[in-house]
């Protein structure tokens, strides 16, 4: 931390960061969040040091990748985006055919030396490809561009939703949607799309959603209807957060978390642990940190030298927001339970790496020549 605060070394460290093409504000926030995350993971895992070390390894790897990605110039990113996209979609199809089944869904691809979820690639590839496609068109987007973009987005989204992985599908879908939104799809069109979607809602309810997904939505509306079954997660999570009160029960002292009442407490429900142990103040502080990151991302987008950068940085920042909103919304009982982790804090490798690479993209855009100049 002294790297930034020390007044004599300030310009020096600034130069190092610039040389690494790293944005100091984002980097600082990401580091603070990661430290928070480690502390919380220690508590949520029941003081499991092994688990923390594994997460630390991933974090280091993710930070290295961040810097690596930050050093790829935007114009190269723009060029490779279509290949990345196509590769991702092919892998998705491969997963459908050969993939491994984990927790009842087919998401993993085992390449022998590494196991990963191709859907993670699409979290970056989809906004990249849509941004690169739209960057060269006249904005606001016309009908043709709209149709092409929607196709580009919906193919991987449907593939992912079929796995089924609703959380990732939402994240990928919204990333693509944000590019379109920023590229200026007319309000009228968005409105009519919205109306169309809500008209189709009953059909989607029956056809597109699986039983357990319908259950989750019904559970959200009335969790007490099945307190030991599908409602259990959400009830226990609300109890944990609510019982945290203003200041929380203290680090490692959350009874709901330490006594196993919160399921998935080191992954999707880690915010419940946070809310219980650090209370309302802690939660506000955490959300504030997230807000700074999102706004910094939007700021970089606004100051990017060209459309590709503007659209991509903006869309990635907003997708990051979706992570935060969907996760906090679901653990507080505002949204149905979908598998969206709390970014940079939940235990789990792939999402952490993807997120950091996303920030690498944003930093690459910030460092492009004209932006700096």
């Amino acid at each position, binding site marked *: 931390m002294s790297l930034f605060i020390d007044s004599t070394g300030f310009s020096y460290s600034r130069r190092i960061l610039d040389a690494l093409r790293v944005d100091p504000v984002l980097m600082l926030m990401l580091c603070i969040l990661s430290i928070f995350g480690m502390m919380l993971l220690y508590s949520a895992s029941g003081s499991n040091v092994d688990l923390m070390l594994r997460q630390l390894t991933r974090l280091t790897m993710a930070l290295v990748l961040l810097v690596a990605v930050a050093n790829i110039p935007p114009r190269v990113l723009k060029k490779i985006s279509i290949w990345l996209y196509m590769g991702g979609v092919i892998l998705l199809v491969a997963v459908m055919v050969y993939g491994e089944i984990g927790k009842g869904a087919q998401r993993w691809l085992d390449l022998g030396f590494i196991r990963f979820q191709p859907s993670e690639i699409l979290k970056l590839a989809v906004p990249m490809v849509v941004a690169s496609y739209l960057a060269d068109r006249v904005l606001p987007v016309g009908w043709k561009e709209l149709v092409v973009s929607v196709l580009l987005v919906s193919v991987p989204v449907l593939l992912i939703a079929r796995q089924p992985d609703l959380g990732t599908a939402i994240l990928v879908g919204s990333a693509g949607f944000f590019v379109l939104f920023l590229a200026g799809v007319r309000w009228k069109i968005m409105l009519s799309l919205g109306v169309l979607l809500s008209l189709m809602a009953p059909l989607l309810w029956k056809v597109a959603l699986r039983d357990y997904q319908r259950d989750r939505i019904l559970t959200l509306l009335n969790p007490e209807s099945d307190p030991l079954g599908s409602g259990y997660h959400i009830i226990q999570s609300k109890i944990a957060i609510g019982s945290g009160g203003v200041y929380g029960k203290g680090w490692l002292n959350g009874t709901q978390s330490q006594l196993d*009442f919160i399921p998935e407490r080191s992954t999707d429900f880690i915010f419940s642990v946070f809310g219980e142990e650090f209370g*309302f103040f802690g939660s506000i502080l955490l959300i504030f940190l997230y807000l700074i990151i999102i706004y910094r991302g*939007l700021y970089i987008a606004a100051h990017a030298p060209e459309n590709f950068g503007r659209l991509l940085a903006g869309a990635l920042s907003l997708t990051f927001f979706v992570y935060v909103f969907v996760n906090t919304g679901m653990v507080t009982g505002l949204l149905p339970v979908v598998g969206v982790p709390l970014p940079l804090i939940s235990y789990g490798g792939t999402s952490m790496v993807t997120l950091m690479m996303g920030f690498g993209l944003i930093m690459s855009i910030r460092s492009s020549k004209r932006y700096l100049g």
Partner: protein
Amino acid sequence: MFKRVYLKDDFLESRLIRRRLIVSAGIVLVLIGIVVARLYVLQIVDYEHFSTLSDSNRIRIRALPPTRGLIYDRNGVVMANNLPAYRLEIVREQVEDMDETLSRLKHYIAYTDQDLDRFQLLSRRRRPFESIPLRLNLNDEEVARLAVNLHKFSGVEINARLTRNYPKGSHAVHALGYVGRIDVDDLSRVDEISYAGTSHIGKLGLEKYYETELHGTVGVQQVEVNAKGRTLRVLNETPPIPGKNLHLTIDSKLQEVAEQSFGEESGALVAINPNNGEILALVSMPIFDPNLFVNGVSYENYNELRDSPSRPLFNRALSGQYPPGSTAKPFFALAALEANVIDKDNTVTCKGFYRLPNEERKFRDWKKGGHGEMNMKNAITQSCDVYFYDLSYRLGIDKMSALLEQFGFGQKTNIDSTGERAGILPSREWKRKTEGIMWFPGETLNTGIGQGAFLVTPLQLANSIAALSLKGKRYRPRLVRSIKDNNTEELLETRVEIAGQYQLSKESNWTHIQDSMINVVHGLRGTAARISRGLKYKMAGKTGTSQVFGIAQDEEYDAETIAKNLRDHGLFISYAPAGKPRIAVAVIVENGGHGSSSAAPIARKVMDAYLLGKS
């Protein structure tokens, strides 16, 4: 013709994107605001609610059952205590292959299908980390065999729990009663909170009557559990207070002498200290082992006890009701003297039967051919029925039952135990109430020799003769002498209560009755003369015989030809030493024939043991 051409204009486009970015930033702020508002509601507005829910998730209240109080006899001999009973228990989550474990266990220890059924039922109800009993009440050999081989099994444990134990087995069972597992009926009677964790409750006798004292006070443990219900630590504990100890009036040695004196016979004996109502021995024969009932009696054992013709489960001393027969005569004689309707020296000629004026029916004397000339003393000594027919006829039922009521007949003694019955003291009023018809003079005569509707319990009879020995002062009989609080070490004596006091109109009336009763034992022609040989103290007594079935007018009663279970009951009441009584005894030997041969020797043995310390 012009075609509209759109040119890329970076300035306009960047302005468009910026506008959209600003809109997005606004939407982000609004949505984040919703989350913050939600957190505010959960963590600040509804904090109390969720805090309570969180605590009730993790905090459980466990009951700690108290240790049941012990029971001692009057000399400190342990009559009931608590012993660790060993049980074989299995912790499901520690067993890899349950079927294999169960079949392997069979090599070391026997268990029935009934055991297995209960085990499987509990397995479904209890959590995997809780131990579930497979076999209860392991004997020492089984414990040893298992303990040696326990290392071959994972998740199999031998655990001990305190269980009620009656170290002397069937000894004094009808005085003590017993405990058994709490059933649905019991639960509706007791306070559920104070019995949480308690598995046994007094079912009969003292164990039931003194349940409150013996049970103690339940303790409470507040524990923290995790989501699976496993206890992690104890937050708070109020230890249970053990039940109070009972010190009985019963003398275990005397009780044993009495039980042995019965031999194979069925019957009852109650020995009482006339001066304070303390029960010295309370016997009902045959006896049974109450330990069978503590952990649920098996069907075979229960059926055997229930169907046995000698009815061992029946507490004859308190619940058995018998015609008092001739043992009622001294009381009626006293009544006649007190009412001044008969002079003690007046005589009646006994020809073997009695006839009411203007009636054909003959009332027989037990002695064929009669006793001849009889005054009161001789009539009591030889138990002449005809004399008492005449006496009853002159006295009348009202005066008869009035005096006997004062000696406790026809009413409960209110002993501190359960199952006591009141017997029946016939009277005009009783007849009207129960049968709704008038009293017949013939019934007065039958009552006068202790037959007819007249019924007494052995306890009642003992208490009445005790009252007679004290000229009419009657105490409430007690089984418990003192109660010891294990917590405060305080010893609380039970109260000596006077149940009634008859005022003699003339002391000499009573003296005459006592003299007559001494004559029953010590006189040459006394019906109990055979027990007087070698008697070192002065005993007053009265024999009795009560009919099990009625004999028709002209039939003969012949003990030899009658089936054992239809033979008369033999009775004997007595106290000693006469004049300064220390013990009163009532004995009934079922189907024992005449009281002089069956019941009186038993009373002698008990009195010898008590007064002379001989056993």
